[in-house]
Structures are given as structure tokens and as C-alpha cells.
């Protein structure tokens, strides 16, 4: 059986042209990158969780759900963490549970892209879809981003190489600039690599802004030579349509969301001379979907506290790591994420002491930590739903095989069943 135009949900680039063939027990994948191909093998993963577990012991589905509901009902301040490799429908159901319980709901932006979102709240984000870059851009800048190792098909499918409506020559019609302290794979193929000093991006952005405003930059800034800064400013100002893609290099270095705010303001200024857009290279599959779902439900993008019955947002106060580090949470529901493998050690130590319910596709440290494990359904293969690409383009996740069990149809269904138990 061959399935065409399957949507991949590994990274934020959400390629929708994947071909998946199921021949006997084997899975053949076309068009996907190495990360995508590995994801589709999940269907035959030997570590697949197929039965519910309570305290590490196999139990039936109803028993597991009852136990999960009991844990969450007894909690005074539960944290619901919804991962990104799942549908927005699952996320909405998770948000609903958090609201009902008066808990906190959070997702991957809290660990990775949060500063980008906060940058938007400060400055606004002049952006576009990826196709607009492909069709129009003659200048592509990757700032603190390294797509050749994070979004493997980014350059070939969207931003650099492909033919565009008004860029028939593809790569030949575009300039590639990389701003990165390291000589990354992407930097190696760049027309200009601006090797900024680590943690000095803010200064470099400010210098470019100063030049755009007609001021002189006297000497080197942020480890970058004066001439290179002028060259960068010239390229940006004089292109016909420019795009800057931003990565965790900015969100996770010194300055955090201030870096993003600065860059968004720089892009805003560039629009006085030409058209310029800024697009965050969101990492995990449906990060964008969580931000959309959370914002449309509560007005806030991540780290939302419902303990007073209405949504509250204050990064650092209601966000996962901070809550766990301060020991403010007394139970967790973790869906489609291996949180334990990615948390600081003292947080993991705290998590060991509180009851955890998790929904996981396969064995992982989070499942091992969990009091209740509910088997996960592989989104985009065993269940349908909605996913948002990093540029907020919504795409359909499509089911093409049955899950290996009958007690639930999808993670959304699992959470709905859990919600029904919480209410009775």
C-alpha cells in the first residue's frame, strides 16, 4: 500500500509530500529527510507501548484511565504538558483538562521557542509564509539558525534552492547570508558568513539598525569588522525581497527575547527601504499549532495558569521548568513528549517525587517515571488531525494505518476519555 502526500510532523517545516509504502512489515519512505524517515519507522518500533501500565504493571484500559483520573483529581496544582508531535485537536483537549482542573498547561515553546514568541509580543513580527520567500526572495539570511542540521529540507524545498514564481533561477537568483558564531554546515555554503561573537547578536543588530538610520558605525562591533557590517546592511537594504530566518541561537543565547525583539524591529525598519520578512524556524513539528491553539483559547501562547478559573500568563512564573524547580506542582499529565529526558537534573529529581500520568508512543525516560502510562497513538499515521507549519500554514495529518489497539483512536480521544472521567 502506498500513501502519497503524507504530512510529516517531525520538525516545523512540516513537509507534506512524503510517500509512505507499507510492504509486509516493512516501511518504505520517499521524499522525507533522515529525521522524517526515522519517524515513520515508529510504526514498527520494538519499544512501542501497546498496553496501559500502572506502576509498571500491565492493566486494562479502564483501570489505567481510572487511576489517571484519580491522580489528576487529587492534585491541587497539576501541570499538563502537551508535546509538539501531536495534533492541535489533542492540544485543545489538553487545554480543556487544564482549565477544568485549574492547573497549568504548557508545551515546547517553554523550553525552546518561548523567547521568540515574547519577542513578537514586544515588537511584532513582520512575516510571511515560506512560499512567499521561495517565490520572491533574492536574499535569505539565517541568523542563529542552521537548517542543514535542524530542518533538513528547508533550503531545498522552501528557502534557497527551489525555483520561485519570480526567481526562476532558484539558488542562482538568491544570496545566502549566515550570521552565526560557528562555522556551521549552512555557513559553509553561504555567500557571506558573518561570524559574530557569541552572545553579541544584539550589538550587531543595533549596528545594522544604526547604519540604516544613517549613522556611522566607527569600528568593529561584536567581533565583526566594520566593512562586513556595512556589507550586511547594504545587502539587506538593497535586496528586492529579503527574509531572515531565526533559530535557537538567538532565543537561547544572552539577551534571549530581547535579541528577537531587536531583530524584529530591524526587519520593520528594513521595510522602509524594501520588503523584508522574518520567520522563526520553529523546531518541533506542531509547536506553531500549540501556540495557535493556546492563544485562540486563552489569549496567551504558552505557560498558562488556570488556577483562578481564568487564564494567566507570565513566563518565568507559570512555565514548566520554573514551576517544577520551585516544587509548585503536585501531579503531571505529559502527552506526546519525553520531558524527563530534557529537563535539568534537579527538576527531574523533583518529578520523581510526584505522580505522573503520561501518554507515550514508545518507551522513554518519561514513561519509566510515570505512575500511569497510556499508550500513545502515532499522529499523522494512526490518527488524523491538524498541524501547523512553522509559518502558521495549517495542514492535515492523515491516518493511514490502524493503531495496534482498539481502546483509543487518537491521543485526542484518550484525553477526551480521561476528561469524561474527570467530570464524573
Amino acid at each position, binding site marked *: 500500500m502506498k500513501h502519497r502526500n503524507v504530512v510529516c510532523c517531525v520538525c516545523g517545516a512540516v513537509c507534506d509530500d512524503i510517500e509512505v509504502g507499507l510492504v509486509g512489515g516493512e516501511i518504505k519512505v520517499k521524499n522525507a529527510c533522515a529525521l522524517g524517515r526515522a519517524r515513520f519507522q515508529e510504526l514498527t518500533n520494538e519499544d512501542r507501548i501497546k498496553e496501559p501500565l500502572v506502576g509498571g504493571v500491565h492493566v486494562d484500559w479502564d483501570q489505567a484511565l481510572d487511576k489517571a483520573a484519580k491522580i489528576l483529581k487529587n492534585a491541587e496544582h497539576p501541570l499538563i504538558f502537551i508535546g509538539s508531535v501531536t495534533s492541535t485537536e489533542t492540544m485543545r483537549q489538553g487545554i480543556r483538562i487544564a482549565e477544568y482542573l485549574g492547573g497549568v498547561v504548557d508545551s515546547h515553546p517553554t523550553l525552546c521557542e518561548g523567547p521568540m514568541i515574547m519577542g513578537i509580543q514586544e515588537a511584532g513580527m513582520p512575516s510571511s509564509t515560506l512560499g512567499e520567500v521561495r517565490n520572491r526572495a533574492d536574499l535569505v539570511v539565517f541568523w542563529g539558525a542552521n537548517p542543514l542540521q535542524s530542518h533538513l529540507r528547508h533550503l531545498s524545498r522552501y528557502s534557497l534552492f527551489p525555483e520561485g514564481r519570480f526567481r526562476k533561477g532558484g539558488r542562482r537568483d538568491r544570496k545566502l547570508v549566515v550570521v552565526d558564531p560557528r562555522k556551521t554546515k549552512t555557513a559553509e555554503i553561504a555567500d557571506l558568513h558573518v561570524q559574530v561573537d557569541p552572545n553579541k547578536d544584539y550589538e550587531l543588530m543595533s549596528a545594522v539598525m544604526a547604519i540604516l538610520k544613517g549613522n556611522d558605525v566607527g569600528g568593529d562591533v561584536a567581533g565583526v569588522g566594520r566593512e562586513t557590517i556595512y556589507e550586511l546592511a547594504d545587502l539587506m537594504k538593497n535586496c*528586492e525581497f529579503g527574509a531572515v530566518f531565526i533559530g535557537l541561537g538567538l532565543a537561547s543565547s544572552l539577551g534571549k527575547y530581547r535579541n528577537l525583539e531587536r531583530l524584529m524591529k530591524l526587519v520593520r525598519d528594513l521595510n522602509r527601504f524594501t520588503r523584508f520578512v522574518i520567520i522563526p524556524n520553529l523546531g518541533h513539528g506542531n509547536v506553531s499549532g500549540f501556540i495557535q491553539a493556546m492563544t485562540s483559547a486563552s*489569549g496567551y501562547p504558552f505557560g498558562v495558569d488556570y488556577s483562578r478559573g481564568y487564564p494567566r500568563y507570565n513566563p518565568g512564573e507559570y512555565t514548566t521548568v520554573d514551576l517544577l524547580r520551585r516544587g509548585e506542582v503536585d501531579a503531571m499529565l505529559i502527552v506526546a513528549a519525553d520531558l524527563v529526558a530534557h529537563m535539568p537534573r534537579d527538576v527531574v529529581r523533583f518529578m520523581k517525587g510526584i505522580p505522573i500520568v503520561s501518554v507515550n508512543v514508545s518507551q522513554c525516560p518519561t514513561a519509566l517515571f510515570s505512575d500511569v502510562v497510556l499508550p500513545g497513538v502515532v499522529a499523522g499515521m494512526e490518527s488524523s488531525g491538524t498541524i501547523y507549519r512553522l509559518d*502558521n500554514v495549517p495542514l492535515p495529518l492523515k491516518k493511514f494505518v490502524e493503531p495496534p489497539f482498539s481502546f483509543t483512536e487518537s491521543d485526542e480521544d484518550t484525553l477526551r476519555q480521561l476528561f469524561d472521567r474527570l467530570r464524573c
Partner: protein
Amino acid sequence: MQYIMMKNVVLRNGIVYDPLNNVNGERKDLFIHEGRLVEKMDERKAKVIDLKGKVVMPSGVDIHSHFAGGKVNMGRLLRPEDSMGHEVSKTGLLRSGSGFSLPTTHLTGYLYARMGYTLANEPAVPPMKSRHTHEEFNETPMLDKSGLLLLGNNHQVIEYVAEEDQESLNSWISYMLNATKTYGVKAVNPGGVFAWGWNKYINSLDDEVPCYNVTPKEIISGLIQGCATLRLPHPLHIHLNNLGNPGNYETTLESMRMGPMHITHAQFSSYGGDSWKDFCSEAEKVAKEVNRRAEITVDMGQVVFGETTTITADAPFEYHLSQLTGMKWSNADVENESGGGVTPYTYRKSSGVNAVQWAIGLELALHVKDPWRVYLTTDHPNAAPFIYYPRIIAWLMDKRYRDKVLGECHRWALERTTLPSLDRELSLEEIVVMTRAGPAKRLDLRASLSIGDEANLAVYDISPEETEGEKIEEAFSSAAYTIKNGDIVVKDGRVVREINGRTFWVKTRTEKDIKEDILERFRYYTIEPENYIVESAYIRNGVELDTK
């Protein structure tokens, strides 16, 4: 059975307004059986409500409100400050939410229902992001919904117009509507948003759109013809070129001569003067032209003073507004199709321009003679959030009430508009037309109390003779009852039952098969044609209207 019982209601002694049936303030009993209005029924099997001293009318219909979808959510994301201090708690019945100018999905439904509204038309669906709009429609309770598809800057549309291939253009429009499950066609600054992709501007209907040898006029003509050929229930819904610029009323008059269309938020397109210095109202001229042309309808886009969020597919407009104010700005160009921008804005009484803008909306409503052709909107949230509709109703019905505001405004409102000289006060019947029967008719939907119709109606605690603005505003802010398909969903201004409304879309057919061409044109999209299509199963309570 118990549920059906709840849909059986007898409304006694209400003063009924039903313009479609020429019922104008008559004391009547209404009978609702299983969600529909009937001649008579067994009262023992129904809930009987005495509405003595209250007025009854079809529930409200908003023909133009940006309440769901990518741009709206971009606004919510940009503005946490719009949510803070405007949070609403969950109850045993209702979801929580937040937002003043951009309420979250559930809250949007509750707020509309409280005012007695049960239908809202989202007028800016970018085709490629229509799934997002539908996802938010699914999450917006209480309301029936429809969406209009942004096609005025669609590259394929422009190409077909350039090739003078109207037949293929019709097929393309049909394909797009069917793929995105939308209800009609919207054009926003036709050609202008595309041009801004190259940092170029379109300032008149005859400017050439870069890269293609066409003008906005030709795009508009092609779309008007397409809407007619496809027998769409709603004509071309247009946000005109040159919107927001001094002197743009001439573009407005010129556009009106092109054929049947609904000109939305006409307030933003009725400006005189050559610059912001000699900015003035030309609402009277625009209204006169509307009076002359039966095929034209408008909605107000009424300004209410205060802070709001502006969101429009007219991306260059938002950019310029943000340059003017220095406020933060988000933008979202959509490949091959459209654009969109968001920036906060505050309308001030002390600003001459804002004061004139405020007057223009009212002037339009008062100068247009036929209430069936001018509808009450605020272009939510651009000129004001929709929660202000009751205040606007009161301004239109009570000259004293609006003159009070006029007196507080910058003198330009007195000197550069005709509002001070307008004595007209709209009757309750005219308001019922402007806020329900009229917009519904223009959408080819029904807002009436005919026997057999769905029971979608609102009851307000107000005397038909009431002339005092304060009381009118209060009454319309909080419906005594809102009834949706026979369910009592609001009582005394409180939502007492959450229901899911429906989503309407059209099914169209065309002669010419352009399947191959469609695939060819997808070459410059970054998603596959198959994944572009929103399946009907995706839509909660979808209703397909076949135009055959």
C-alpha cells in the same frame, strides 16, 4: 425527548418586529416547536414566557466581523495586553477566556449571544489558511458562521484576468470556494497587496499591477462577473483600493459604477481632502451614490473612541498605520494569495482625523435612505470591537445622545462633516433592518419570523417608544432572551446554554474543467493540492448550500 421539549417555547405578548414580513411593532404571540416557528401549538408541552413590555425581533446578523482565523489570532498573540484585565472565568457551564478587542473563541460566541446576535460572517479568509479559520469556527460556540475568501490579490486570479480568460477565472473561483469551504468572494485592495510584495503601491483603479499587465479595475470586473456566473448568494464583498487615504471617496464613487457589490466599512472609504491637514468627510456624496444605485450595499465600519486592534488583509495599510503611530506591527504575507497585518490603534476624540472618522460612519447610516442597504458594523475590531454595537444603535436612534459625543469631539467633527445638521433619528424598525433582516438578506440567508423559519430571535427589555440613548444602549447590550434554533441560550444577558452553531459554505459548479491548469498553478505553492483542500468532515455542523 427532554431536549426537544426545551425547543418548544411560547412567547406571549411580545412587541414583534419582523421587517421581512412587514410586521412593525405588533403585539403577537410566537410559537416555537422543535426549533421552528409554527402557527400554533399545545402550550402544555412548551415553556411559556410572558414578554409583556418587551420587543422581539430576529437575532442579530453581523455581515463583517474579523472574529476568527490566522490574522485574528496573530492579533491575540501580538497583544497579551488586550487580554490582561479582560479575563473571564470558567463557570459550571461556560469556558474561560480573555480579550477586549480580540476576545478568544468561546468568549466571542458568548459576547455576541449576549447582545442577541447568532450569525457572524468572517470576511477575510486567506485560502491557504482557511483550515485555521474553520478550526476557530469550530471553537466558536453560539454563532452560525460563514467565511469570505480573499481573492483580490490571488496570483491565479490576476493571471486569468491578464489572459482575459473569464471562463477559467470562474472555474478557478469555484475551485477555490469548494476547496476552502467558504461562502463568497472578498477582495481587499485588489492588486495593491500583491504590489506591496515588491514595495510598490496602487493608488487608483487604473494603476498597473506590477508583473502583470492588469489594473485593479479589471480584477474587480472579473470577480464581479465570476460571482454572478457562479450564482453566489453574496455579491463581491470589497474593501476598496485607496482605503484609509484622504480623498479616497473618488475611488469609492468610481468603484460603485462597476456593478453589484457590497462595499464594506465604507467609513474608511468616504474621505475628502488632499492630505491629513484638509481631511474631511465626503460621506454625503458616497451615500447619495448608494441611494442612486440599487445594486450597491454598504456597511458602516463605525468608529468608537478608545483603544482597539486593527487587523486587515490590506497589509500595506497596516504597515503605514504602524509607521504613523510607532506601535508594534505584525505582518503575514500568504504566498500567491494575500497578505495581512495587525497593529494596535487608539481613536481619540481630541484628534481631528479621528473625530471626522467617527462622524462619517454615522453620516453614512443617516444619509443612506434605505436601511436595507446600509448595515451596522464596526469592521470589528478595526474601528471598534463589536461589543459597542448597542452604543451605535443608541447614537443612531437618539440625536441628543450622539450630539453629546459630538460636543466632546475635536471641532473638525463639527466643521468638516454634515453630522451636526443631521436630525434624522432611526426608528426601531430601521435598526432591526440594519442589524438583522438587511444583512441576512444580502447574504441570502434569512432573519425573519415567518412560520416555518428557524427560531433565531432576540428579546430586549425596552419599550418600542423608548427614545433615550442611555436606555437603548443598555437594553441592546444585554438581551432579555436570545433564542437559537429554539434553544433559549441567553436569559437576562447571561448565557444559560452553550450550543454549537453551524458553518455555511457554498457548493458551486462550472462548465470548464481546469484540473490540469490547477495542478500547474500549484507549482508555486509550498503545499500539495491534495492537502490544500479542507474536507467537509473537518467542519463542525457544516451546511453546504448548493448554488445550482
